[in-house]
C-alpha cells in the first residue's frame, strides 16, 4: 500500500492508503475525496481531475504524458508547473507519502 495525501482548496487534508497501480484520480474517487471529479474516467478527455503535485514530489511523479499538457489547457483553475491530471499519475512504491493539492474548481 502507498499513502497519498490530498489537500483540498480549503485546506482539508485526507490521507488514504491505496494499492500500487491505481491512479491518484481513481483513489480519490474510490475514497470519496472531494475536489476530484474525473468525469471521463481517466480517458484524458476532460481536465476535471486536475491536481497540483507538491513541489517536493514533482520529480518523482514524472513528466506529463503525451496529450496531458494539451488537455490541461481545459482546466477550470489556474495551471502551474506543478499541475497534472491525476488520472495520469499511477501510484508506485516510490510515491509513498505523495502530497497533492486540489484546485478550487474542476468544472
Amino acid at each position, binding site marked *: 500500500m502507498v499513502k497519498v495525501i490530498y489537500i483540498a482548496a480549503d485546506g482539508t487534508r485526507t490521507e488514504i492508503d491505496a494499492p500500487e497501480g491505481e491512479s491518484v484520480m481513481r483513489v480519490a*474517487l*474510490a475514497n470519496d475525496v472531494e475536489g476530484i471529479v474525473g468525469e*471521463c*474516467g481517466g*480517458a484524458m478527455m476532460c481536465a476535471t481531475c486536475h491536481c497540483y503535485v507538491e513541489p517536493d514530489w514533482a520529480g518523482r511523479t514524472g513528466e506529463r504524458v503525451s496529450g496531458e499538457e494539451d488537455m490541461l*489547457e481545459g482546466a477550470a483553475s489556474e495551471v502551474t508547473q506543478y499541475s497534472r491530471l491525476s488520472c495520469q499519475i499511477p501510484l508506485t512504491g516510490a510515491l509513498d507519502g505523495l502530497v497533492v493539492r486540489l484546485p478550487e474548481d474542476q468544472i
Partner: protein
Amino acid sequence: MTLASVIIIGAGQGGLQAAISLRQEGFSGAITLIGAEPGLPYQRPPLSKAYLLEGKAEALTLRPESFFRTKDITYLTETRVEGIDRAAGQVIAYGPQGTMRLGYDALVLATGARNLRPPIEGLEHALDLRTLADAARLRAALATKRRIAVIGGGFIGLEFAAMARKLGHGVSVIEAAPRLMARAVSPAISAHFARLHQDWGTELILGHAATRIAPDAVTLANGGTVPADLVLLAAGVRPNSDLAEAAGLVVENGVRVDATLRSSDPAIFALGDCACFLDPRTGAHIRLESVQAATDQARLIAANLVRGTSTAYGALPWFWSDQADIKLQIAGLGGNDCTDILLQDGVVARLRGPDVVAVETLNKPGIHIRARKLLAGNDPVALDQISAIAAPQAAGAA
C-alpha cells in the same frame, strides 16, 4: 414549490451526478436514487475498451458505498420503476423489498437507453454491450479464440472490434449504412477509420444489413454469409422513455424537455440518453448519447432546482472514442447537412453556413481542447480561427 424530496430514476453516470450535484448545491431534503442493476453506479465508457482487456469491474465504480451514507442518499438497487403517479406525486417501484410508493416533489428521469433491436432473425444468438453484466459475458466469451461478427459500425461496435482484434480474434463489422459512424462523424473521418480497421485486420462489410443470425454465421440482405461463432449487436440505441410515455408526458425521440430540461410536467425533468432537449445552438430538439451531456445536464437540473432558477442548458457537446491507439475527439455537434473541410490529416472542421459547428481530431488533443474552448463561447466561430489553432506551430506539434 417546497422541495423536500427528489427522486432520480436511473443510476447511471447522469443519475448519480444529479444526486451528487443536489448535495453540492446544498439541498438537504431526501434524495432517492433508483437503479435497476445490482451494485454501485459505474462508468459505462470503459466497458467497450479497458474493461474487456483488464476485467477490473471495481475500477469502474463511480462512488464508494460510504458516499451514499455520508451524503444521506438512499440508493435502491435492482429496483424497477413500474409507474409514475403524477397526480399523487409518487413513483411506484418494485425491488427486493417488494412494491413501494415513493413520494417526490421533483422527479428526474435518467433512464438512459437500451439497444436497438433490428428485425434480424435469430437475434437471440447475439450479445449486447450496454451493462457491466453484458460486458462480463462478452469478456468470458473472448477467453477462447473466436470468429466475431459485429453488427453495427458505430462507436461501441468499432471500439469492441479494435479490442477484439488486439486480442487476436477474427473480426467482421457489418454496417447497414455505406460508411462507419455515419451518424456521428464526417465522411473523411469515416474513411480514415475504415482504413485503420482494415489495416488492423478487420473485415468491413459496409452498406449491407444483417438479416439472420445462426450459431455459426450471419446472413446478409444480399444473401452473403459471414462466418461467426460470436455476434455482438451494436446497432444503436433507443431512449428508455416508456415510463414517461405511460405517465402521459410528451415523448418524441425520448422525453421531450424544454431549454431548462423540464418535461411537459413542471415537476419532472429528464437528462442524458433518454432526454430530447431544446438545443440553443440550432433551436432544434436533440438527444445526445454521451457522458458529457448526461453529467452537464444533471448539474444544471440540480442547480436550477436548489436555487429556484430557470437557467437554460447550453453546454457544448463533446465526444470521444478510443479505437486501438487512435483517439477520436469531437468538439461540438455536426451533422450530415454540414460542409466538411479537411484541414490536415486527421483534423476536420464541420460548418453550417459560414460557422464552424464541430471539429473532429485524431490523436490531436491540443487542437481538440482549443476548438472546444472556441466553440463553447457565445460568438460564431469562423474557419480561419480553427485553421489558426490547427496550424502545426500553434498546435505544439513538437
